[in-house]
């Protein structure tokens, strides 16, 4: 079952999606001279702490060493969860405001109750790989991911870290295949995020094929899992953010 040739354009568009962003240092941070804002195109599919080394360096240049501890980001008062993909954060918090996306940078008073710590790239890699593994548990009972060698896992991570589409998809395509006798994955890996609820996302088991053999649609999934999203007229306003 080869999805690559049919959908390669879509896959590339998703991979190369960017959000123009303006980073500004929080006004209460103590600096030795004025901090200029820093502009950057952020990859939608990556993570804040993975792609902001330059932002960190830029602001640390005007700060004293002792004033700098773990970096964290905030948008209009809301701490941004680095472990969510950047595109998801934007769609969840800022999709209706004009570009560039204005993010505030902090180096003090890390919000322990809201954000996970991210002291090194290893933490990001572990989180990313855990997501991949959980998705494969749903798609293939973990068979495909467990049969891969450590170097394949590493290649997925390096592909993401270094923005290498071909390198990433050389491995990821195996995770997106299923045997010809099946009509799809065992369960669809999905999460429905809502900015307004305490619960961060809705995630349930959902099969791609109905008992009668017909393929389920996105509408079927929403009706089953999040019926409040659908209006009496049968329409739903959602932002669809493909992640893996």
């Amino acid at each position: 079952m080869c999805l690559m040739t049919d959908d390669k354009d879509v896959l590339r568009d998703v991979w190369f999606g960017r959000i123009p962003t303006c980073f500004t240092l929080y006004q209460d941070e103590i600096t030795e001279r004025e901090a200029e804002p820093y502009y950057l195109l952020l990859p939608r599919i990556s993570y804040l702490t993975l792609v902001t080394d330059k932002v960190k360096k830029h602001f640390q240049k005007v700060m004293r060493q002792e004033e700098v501890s773990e970096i964290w980001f905030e948008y209009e008062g809301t701490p941004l969860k680095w472990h969510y993909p950047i595109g998801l954060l934007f769609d969840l918090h800022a999709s209706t405001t004009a570009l560039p996306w204005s993010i505030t940078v902090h180096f003090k008073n890390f919000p322990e109750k809201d954000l996970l710590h991210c002291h090194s790239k290893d933490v990001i890699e572990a989180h990313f790989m855990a997501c991949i593994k959980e998705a494969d548990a749903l798609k293939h009972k973990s068979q495909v991911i467990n049969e891969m060698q450590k170097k394949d896992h590493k290649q997925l991570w390096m592909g993401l870290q270094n923005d290498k589409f071909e390198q990433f998809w050389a491995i990821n395509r195996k995770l997106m295949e299923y045997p010809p006798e099946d009509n799809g994955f065992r369960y669809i890996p999905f999460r429905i995020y809502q900015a307004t609820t305490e619960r961060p996302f809705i995630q349930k088991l959902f099969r791609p094929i109905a008992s009668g053999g017909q393929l389920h649609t996105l509408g079927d999934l929403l009706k089953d899992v999040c019926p409040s999203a659908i209006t009496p007229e049968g329409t739903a306003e959602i932002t669809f953010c493909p992640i893996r």
Partner: protein
Amino acid sequence: VSCSMAGEEDFFLEEKRFKQYCEDFVKHSQQIGDGWEWRTSKDLGDGYLSKTHFQVRNRHIPPDLKEKNNDNTEQMLFAHVEEPLDDSQAAGACSTEEVVRYEYHVLYSSSYQVPVLYFRACFLDGRPLTLDEIWGSVHASYQDRLQEGPWDTITQQEHPILGQPFFVLHPCRTNEFISAVLSGSQDHHRHTNYIILWLSTVGPVVGLNLPLSYAKLALEQSTDADLAKSPELKDWEWLGCDKAAADFPGDEGSFLAGHARMEMIAHGSFSGQNSPLVMMGIGCSCGNTSPAPPRPDLP
């Protein structure tokens, strides 16, 4: 044990059964004053087990010092510590720095179809423990496993219902050891509460011990015919290691629990070779000179 099995697959736990085992678990906890409760989420009706307890850093307050009413745990901590403390220890136990508030949650993972242990810890002044401090407080017997692959064991994650940072004990390998134990248990037609079996095994890694009394819950649910088949459950006895519980106060609590669990599952044909409990047995400080089972090579 009633778990769904599909052919050659492992013992996956369906969500309905998870809720039922939790319900039975909470009932027993209420009877013995162990402090567990079930919390239901307001929006989707799913839920989780929850328990809070206080622990002096590196020393565990045995559960039998707690009263049935857990509302005043903090007061009890300072009023009822009966173990003899020397001067340096006394200073440590009374300083707020040394007391850690642990909160444990048991949630259900639909992706892996197993229960998952979430927890968070903070000092009395509200300062949360760091991941390093958590790793450092993991029981000595598990430190080797933790050094090999810390990222496979305990990491910080977002709580799926509350949305706040918690530490999580990774569920990917739960099925490995649970399957080994459950197959032995099935051979002897013994009823087991999956939650008790699982939590009594993984809990001690992060300072959470279950009183042996929970084993009686399983026995209560067995029929007379079952009981006739299985040998009497004796306290504090281990294969190749006979020592009375009274000889091991305080810190050895988790080893004792390990012994008791070993006894519970040893009645089946389960050899214990792959169980993390055997690792705990190797560290046993009871001074017994009988040969212990050989330490399994860890994968």
